[in-house]
């Protein structure tokens, strides 16, 4: 049974406007999604070796949200995540090697093996952090936006979270405050219809999440989370709103998680969702769909794609090698940074 079906409109609506994007930009979106996918796939392969001793939460199938949203941001803009960090981190320009080292619990991990996969950080890239507590980043990101306002700086804050985060009261407290103060913050709900194995219908009545956000006074939009251009356009206008003092935006992006909640592989066979539902969504692969769209419009061809694959493969392997060959922390490291001076 397909409980949650694809409801988007595909790439057609974007065909007339393709000329307005430059090719390099379009290819960079494709590249960024492919890169996230390939990093995840490599993680998945290696995860079975039990050397990456940290929980992982893959975003395979959901890449377009990270990539479309972060493409609308500049380096100065700040991104926060929940537990499903990888796509957000990489799309925002987070250092891949530092991430892999973190996943391998190395001393040169992006937070020196203190955070693990649910807590990445890359300050230089404007990736400001994440929380393993569902919705925990919501008020923090809202506070970052308040800081931008008070410091009179024009960077925007964007925070990613899942559908289940909208069940946490703190999310609504955050939205209320952002709307009240018209803060430069963009809330991105990656609605994949599940929280671990719990379907949305077990957790929320049949109402639209983005409409709830709208009723709280936010500009609020639902987008096709398999369509990187739709995500990008929505994020871009949200960023414009933020920079021009027009207040917060809520983006609900619908895309399906192809893999299990955590760890490697799909777990649909355990029965909480129909494998047919996964297959259904694979027809709307954000990467294949976009590639086909671009190819049809002459923006890329098979050799072009192969070159991207090669380049990424190379980078990914290097990152894994870097991580695996890096040293682990020492006992004395444990006692550092409990307090700041």
């Amino acid at each position, binding site marked *: 049974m397909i409980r949650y079906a694809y409801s988007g409109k595909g790439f057609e609506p974007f065909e007339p406007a393709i000329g307005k994007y430059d090719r390099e930009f379009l290819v960079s979106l494709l590249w960024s999604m492919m890169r996230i996918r390939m990093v995840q796939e490599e993680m998945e392969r290696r995860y079975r070796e039990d050397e990456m001793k940290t929980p992982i939460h893959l975003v395979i199938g959901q890449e377009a949200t990270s990539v479309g949203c972060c493409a609308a941001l500049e380096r100065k803009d700040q991104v926060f995540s929940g537990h499903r960090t990888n796509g957000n981190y990489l799309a925002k320009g987070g250092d891949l090697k530092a991430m892999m080292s973190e996943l391998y619990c190395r001393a040169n991990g992006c937070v020196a093996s203190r955070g*693990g996969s649910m807590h990445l950080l890359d300050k230089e890239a404007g990736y400001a952090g994440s929380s*393993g507590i569902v919705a925990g980043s919501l008020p923090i990101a809202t506070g970052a936006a308040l800081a931008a306002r008070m410091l009179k700086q024009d960077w925007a804050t964007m925070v990613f979270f899942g559908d289940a985060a909208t069940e946490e009261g703190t999310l609504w407290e955050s939205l209320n405050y952002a709307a009240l103060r018209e803060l430069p913050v963009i809330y991105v709900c990656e609605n994949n219809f599940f929280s671990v194995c719990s379907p949305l219908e*077990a957790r929320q009545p049949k109402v639209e999440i983005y409409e709830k956000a709208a009723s709280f006074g936010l500009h609020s939009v639902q987008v096709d989370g398999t369509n990187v251009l739709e995500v990008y356009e929505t994020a871009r206008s949200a960023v414009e709103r933020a920079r021009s003092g027009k207040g917060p935006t809520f983006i609900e992006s619908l895309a399906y998680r192809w893999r299990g909640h955590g760890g490697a592989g799909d777990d649909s066979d355990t029965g909480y969702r129909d494998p047919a539902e996964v297959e259904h969504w694979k027809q709307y692969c954000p990467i294949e769909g976009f590639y086909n769209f671009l190819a049809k419009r002459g923006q890329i061809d098979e050799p072009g794609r192969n070159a991207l694959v090669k380049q990424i493969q190379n980078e990914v392997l290097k990152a894994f090698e870097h991580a695996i060959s890096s040293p682990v922390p020492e006992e004395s490291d444990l006692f550092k940074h409990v307090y700041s001076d």
Partner: protein
Amino acid sequence: MPWAQALIAKKTDSLSHQDPNTGRVLSYAQAINEALVLAMELDPKVFVLGQGVDDPKGMFGATLGLAEKFGGERVFDTPLSEDGMTGICAGAAMMGLRPVYFHNRPDFLLLAFNQLVNHASKVHFMDNGKTNVPMVVWAAIGRGWGSGAQHSQAVHGLLLGVPGLKIVLPSSPYDAKGLMLSAIADNNPVLIFEHRWCMRRKSAVPEGFYTVPLGKGVYRRRGTDLTIVGVSHTLELALEAVDELARDGISADAIDLRTIKPLDEEIIFESLKKTGKILILDSTWAMGGLCAEIGCRVAEKGFRDLKAPVRRIGLPDIPTPAGFTLEQYYYPDKKRIASAIGEIAAA
């Protein structure tokens, strides 16, 4: 009180079972599962809820099959609203139901402190005894595999000082079953914290009804050189340590408190009177929680018996690191506990 007396009494032969070493062997999860089945069969007012209680993993297996057996009206998934759902449990309990609310991690209970501390624990007192809040909140302490600072905390130390709560930390399948039945039977909010590493244990578990009383510790070892008192996984490590130290001629009373609130101080003082020395263990921060409380009580009421400084071993005053190397320096291990035991015995 129907449950505590009438119903259980009818079914239970005795409250004094001791963790037997023979008989049917169950895993930890099976033991809890069996307690839940028994309680739900006994009383239609018992229900089970929590994120994932009806999913294929069934809360580490503890709730597997319950939804099939008792239906979705009595075994159900929840939204991710820990504070709200805790209050919902409290409200349902105030109207006579007996919710058993499961969490993957105690860290998530920090979202629910308002309902736990400001409400559930106080209602009975504030209502002048007119309302009861018979609810059970269960959570499994995470450790290892990069759980890190937000997925590995044990929060029982933070709650120890809160009047009106009962707090349970089982360490064996036998106790897990018997304490779960006692907790469900109790007319107060009871928090049960299992440790994921204890949950790997199997042990003999009698079939049918029995309860392990809340507020009663138990000797796991008998000896003369010192008293070891603690709960959960860290106590398990200490038992291993003490067994090894037998070859050095060291022996100890080892007390598993099982319940930390109410706290069985009699058993501690009984042992201390004999040994004069004490090592206190906990699976959470050593500061300000159970270790501190016991250490202070010993200095108050056991002072005349005390022949050497109190020692405690818990976690240092540091958040949990994610990586396995840092973890290994963070958590007390058998070696560290053994050397403390050796030093105390020699003192």
